[in-house]
């Protein structure tokens, strides 16, 4: 009797398995033109056969192939996130780079060059009123260039902030859409391949925006975790993320009024910014919280643009106030040329200007010495072009070199991002190819492929370390 029941159970299982094969075939026909739909193939497994022990054999539909398909989908999504990251970085850095001219024909480098030349011309004709007037005008132009650069970069920071907000909204919208699909699946439609295809299309779109791990459950729903640990969706419950500006309190900020950073929070209010590193959202955060503050500052750094503006203004003012306008007696001391908001280290470039009360004849020319030099001050100012004295340098570099390095940093970052984007594109194509390669491959065939792959992989890997060394050597020798 027991064997009879076992046989009946076995037959029922077999019929169910074949039923699912037919269901799969029907789904393939019905969804042939559905976007994102991948052809399904149901694997059947032979069960052990031992009638004496009540083990009656038969076939069952397996989960391994489904798991493999999902694994391949996740691999594609992972590379899609990588692509989203690099693409966003390239787009944003291209815009930022346009604010840094290193040709010397416009912006800060041109204005700086003009000011240094005007110092030199003034040194040659120290009593020439026009030369003094030119110095004041060039100083005004340079201050304006610093202001413009600062304003433009701050505007980029605001744009990026908005983009982050929009990206967060898009993430929440897509998760909400998938939540709806989960709801449908929970109503007993887990085998609906059309539904599955719509889920995957939404997941692909989501992968470009954020680094999300998707895990399909046995009831056909999908769980979503941001960066592998912050829940976005569990069954039909969504956990929304949000973005906001914030000024960190720990450690105590050096610049209390510096530009705020952008923070991403989970639905429970926890700060997940540092974990949000992938896809478009990760790139935008990197740009907004790290790259841009390195130029315009934040709570903990003044930013290189402000450092340069402050150092230049202070040094020029120091040289001018150390000199005399007339020998006297009594000797009349020079006045400072530049002013800026000294209460906020992150506002120097934006607030840099020439004191409007300063007239050309108030510029000190005489270096009191001893010995007194009639054009000592303009000569000392001219030396800023090719500094020898550490006081004439900023972080050990001339002002032109410092700006060149600052601008070059954007160029290097853009160059790296562009190269990485190319590599990422190849990795994405490769992941799609691997997904395609395994579609419709039986588990037996797969086992053979995996063994062959391991052997070939080991053989190929051996040459990589050699080539790594050789290509490095080529650069080092030719450098």
């Amino acid at each position: 009797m027991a064997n009879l029941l076992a046989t009946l159970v076995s037959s029922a299982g077999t019929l169910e398995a074949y039923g699912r094969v037919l269901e799969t075939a029907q789904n393939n026909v019905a969804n042939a033109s559905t976007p994102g739909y991948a052809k399904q193939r149901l694997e059947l497994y032979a069960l052990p056969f031992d009638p004496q022990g009540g083990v009656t054999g038969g076939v069952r539909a397996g989960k391994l192939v489904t798991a493999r398909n999902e694994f391949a989908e996740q691999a594609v999504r992972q590379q899609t996130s990588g692509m989203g990251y690099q693409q966003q970085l390239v787009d944003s850095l291209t815009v930022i780079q346009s604010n840094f001219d290193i040709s010397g024909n416009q912006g800060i480098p041109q204005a700086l060059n003009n000011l240094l030349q005007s110092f030199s011309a003034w040194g040659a004709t120290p009593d020439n009123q026009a030369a003094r007037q030119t110095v004041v005008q060039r100083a005004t132009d340079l201050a304006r260039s610093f202001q413009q650069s600062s304003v433009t970069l701050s505007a980029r920071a605001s744009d990026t902030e908005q983009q982050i907000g929009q990206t967060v909204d898009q993430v929440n919208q897509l998760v909400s859409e998938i939540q709806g699909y989960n709801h449908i699946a929970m109503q007993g439609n887990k085998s609906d391949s059309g539904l599955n295809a719509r889920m995957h299309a939404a997941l692909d779109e989501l992968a470009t925006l954020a680094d999300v791990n998707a895990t399909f459950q046995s009831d056909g729903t999908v769980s979503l975790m941001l960066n592998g640990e912050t829940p976005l969706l569990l069954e039909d419950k969504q956990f929304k993320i949000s973005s906001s500006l914030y000024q960190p309190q720990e450690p105590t900020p050096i610049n209390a009024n510096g530009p705020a950073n952008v923070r991403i929070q989970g639905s429970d209010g926890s700060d997940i910014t540092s974990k949000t590193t992938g896809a478009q959202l990760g790139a935008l955060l990197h740009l907004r919280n790290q790259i841009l503050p390195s130029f315009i500052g934040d709570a903990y750094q003044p930013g290189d643009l402000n450092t340069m503006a402050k150092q230049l203004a202070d040094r020029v003012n120091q040289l001018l106030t150390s000199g005399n306008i007339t020998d006297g007696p009594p000797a009349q001391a020079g006045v400072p040329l530049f002013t800026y908001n000294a209460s906020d280290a992150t506002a120097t470039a934006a607030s840099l200007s020439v004191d409007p009360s300063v007239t050309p004849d108030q510029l000190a020319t005489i270096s009191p010495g001893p010995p007194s030099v009639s054009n000592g001050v303009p000569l000392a100012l001219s030396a800023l072009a090719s500094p020898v004295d550490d006081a004439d340098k900023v972080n050990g570099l001339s002002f032109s070199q410092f700006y060149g390095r600052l601008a070059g940093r954007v160029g290097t970052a853009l160059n790296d991002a562009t190269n990485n984007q190319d590599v990422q594109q190849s990795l994405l194509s490769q992941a799609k190819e691997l997904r395609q390669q395994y579609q419709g491959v039986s588990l037996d065939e797969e086992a053979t492929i995996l063994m062959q792959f391991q052997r070939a992989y080991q053989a190929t890997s051996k040459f990589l370390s050699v080539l790594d060394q050789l290509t490095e050597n080529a650069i080092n020798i030719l450098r």
Partner: protein
Amino acid sequence: MGTAALVEQLMSARQQLDFACELLAKPSPEALDSCSSVLEAAGHQLAEWQPTFSQQAGDAAALEEAWKLRRSFVRTARLLQGAGDFHRNWLRLRGAMTGGYTETGESAPLIHGSRISVHG
């Protein structure tokens, strides 16, 4: 050796790496076998030419080509790693699904057994 000849050599090695990348874009075992031969050939060539590189030290054109070669290498390495990670991770997952976990919490090793695969 002149700059032009050196640049040509570096370019030739780079083209081989680019070809390896093409193979790795569709990383079947057969493609990997072919890739292995290509990388070996590129390695041999570079090792053979390397002693002459110092004659062109400081040459901007040669250095630029060396950087291009390096970038092609990085792409090759990343693609090989990408394919390796895919298979390694799937093996680990499949091992866990079929054999559970070992005492140390690792995925159970996947035992392939002896199989014969017949292709039509």
